């Protein structure tokens, strides 16, 4: 290994002079479009898409701003989904409590897996997270609570705070939109806090951050837990929306998909992963009759993105106009 080769992280999408106000504008614009979206598309489909979009944003917090490529984020999404489904169906908790339970569970899992993985650098970190996620997958496959191949089905949506009936898809969509915007705004605040600034400094030059006296492992672990918790929020919400939790949610293909969404939308951009999620979902929907070709096309998008499109859709736009999105 050479000492000369710079440890080049994800390409910084934001120009140095850019202010975060454009990001806030982008979030606001996105909120407006999404609020009007049920006029144009099925609310149920949109609600599912928003769960994946939040998942991608949570993943992006780790890879885009922390420079840590987790290859096992499905373990947080999936286990939160199982926990929320179990809480709502078996324990009979109301949806808000079920989602909270799933989210906290994912956070705890993040704490445990972060303790094991964060000390390892770069490529090792990716492999360890992948292996830990596979461990979680096999536990989900064999545990009596998850019902193996069937998954947890017919999860009741219930009434939010005992008042709002979620069985109506449109109502459900706006609740999910509120959760999504809460998650996205949290990420925005995290990225622009002093903590987020240190995190980006670690991404750019870890050695220098250490020499400046920062305990980088603690920062990275905190980012990992935050990302896991938000991924859990997405997974738990998804369990209520789709009324099910299945093995697909914990499988490594889901971990791969969230990477693809983030890569296509733009790593290290605020709204990029949202667009990436919608693009990939639309593609899957459109190509669903073509069977395994979806896998081939996803692979091809990976290859093309890595070879010549590393900034992603939103990243390219942001770079063109020298703004931060």
């Amino acid at each position, binding site marked *: 290994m050479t000492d000369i080769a710079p440890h080049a992280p994800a390409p910084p999408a934001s120009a140095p002079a850019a202010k975060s106000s454009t990001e806030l504008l982008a979030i606001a614009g996105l909120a407006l479009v999404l609020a009007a979206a049920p006029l144009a598309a099925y609310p149920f489909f949109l609600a599912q898409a928003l769960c994946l979009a939040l998942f991608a944003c949570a993943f992006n917090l780790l890879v885009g701003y922390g420079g840590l490529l987790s290859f096992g984020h499905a373990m947080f999404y999936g286990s939160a989904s199982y926990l929320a489904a179990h809480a709502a169906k078996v324990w009979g908790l109301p949806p808000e409590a079920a989602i909270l339970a799933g989210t906290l569970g994912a956070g705890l899992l993040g704490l445990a897996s972060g303790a094991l993985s964060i000390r390892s650098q770069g490529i090792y970190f990716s492999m360890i997270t992948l292996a830990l996620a596979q461990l979680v997958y096999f536990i989900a496959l064999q545990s009596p609570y998850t019902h193996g191949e069937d998954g947890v089905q017919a999860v009741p949506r219930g009434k939010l705070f005992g008042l709002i009936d979620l069985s109506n898809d449109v109502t459900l969509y706006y609740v999910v939109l509120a959760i999504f915007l809460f998650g996205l705004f949290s990420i925005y605040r995290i990225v622009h806090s002093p903590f987020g600034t240190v995190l980006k400094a670690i991404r750019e030059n870890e050695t220098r951050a250490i020499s400046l006296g920062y305990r980088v492992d603690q920062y990275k672990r905190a980012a990992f837990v935050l990302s896991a918790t938000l991924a859990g929020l997405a997974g738990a919400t998804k369990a209520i929306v789709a009324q099910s939790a299945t093995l697909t949610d914990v499988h490594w293909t889901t971990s791969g998909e969230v990477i693809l969404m983030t890569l296509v939308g733009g790593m290290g951009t605020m709204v990029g992963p949202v667009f990436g999620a919608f693009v990939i979902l639309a593609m899957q929907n459109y190509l669903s009759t073509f069977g395994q070709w979806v896998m081939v096309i*996803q692979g091809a998008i990976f*290859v093309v993105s890595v070879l010549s499109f590393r900034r992603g859709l939103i990243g390219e736009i942001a770079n063109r106009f020298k703004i931060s999105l």
Partner: protein
Amino acid sequence: MIPLLGITTQALFAQLLVGLINGAFYALLSLGLAVIFGMLNIVNFAHGALYMMGAFFAWFLLNALHIGYWPALVLAPLGVAIFGMIVERTMLTRLQGLDHIYGLLLTFGLALIIQGLFQNYFGSSGQPYPVPELLKGGANLGFMYLPNYRAWTIVFSLAVCLLTWFAIEKTRLGAVLRAATENPQLTRAFGVNVPRLITLTYGFGVGLAALAGVLAAPIYQVRPLMGADLIVVVFAVVVIGGMGSIMGSIVTGFALGLIEGLTKVFYPQAANTVVFVVMALVLLVKPAGLFGRKA
């Protein structure tokens, strides 16, 4: 049959044999990963897909061209190695100087493409591949029955692993290789064509995966997804061993196969997960892996 802790020795040895065979595949695959990582600084996520390609290459040779097992043992790794070298020349070489994660993402995409294409043509079901005539039958060792082909698999892969170790650690070519891993610029200054060495190294590592695929074809069925789940276990094996050492990956591969086999006897529920649990335990004690240098 002498029962031991409620388990017959017959069952114990049968599972140990299965464990050794799995261990042989772990060793061959993690060895290839380690060699590739050393030279290219890329974790080859397509390794499982290329292992599958090796098995299908042999299957295709047999069914379309009536070329048997023994020529396939040479031709399949060669064919897959050529494919790998083309991939390296056209794509991987363009990632030099970028973050490691892009190599992982690119090879992950390649794995999806290859597996998807094979699934389109062969579905998810397995294609049978017969055991070669010469290795049919088996020997009764008194305490267990040993099929000849399985004995061959273990002996042959161990020989290939040790030969690779010898070539890298003890020969002049290996010395050049290690020099280029340590400092490519300086090695180039000595007149070594490092880019070509990198391409050949990738071809070699990939060829090892294909060889494992051919060896596996008569034991497991030839399936498009045969490498997809295996590669995750192999990653865990690599993390346990640490990628710094060739001998380390051989030893860890066989050892974990054995541990997995033993788990199948004494606590079958954990057979799928034991490698990952061992990984977690090792990481708690030695974050760089058993044989690894500090990453």
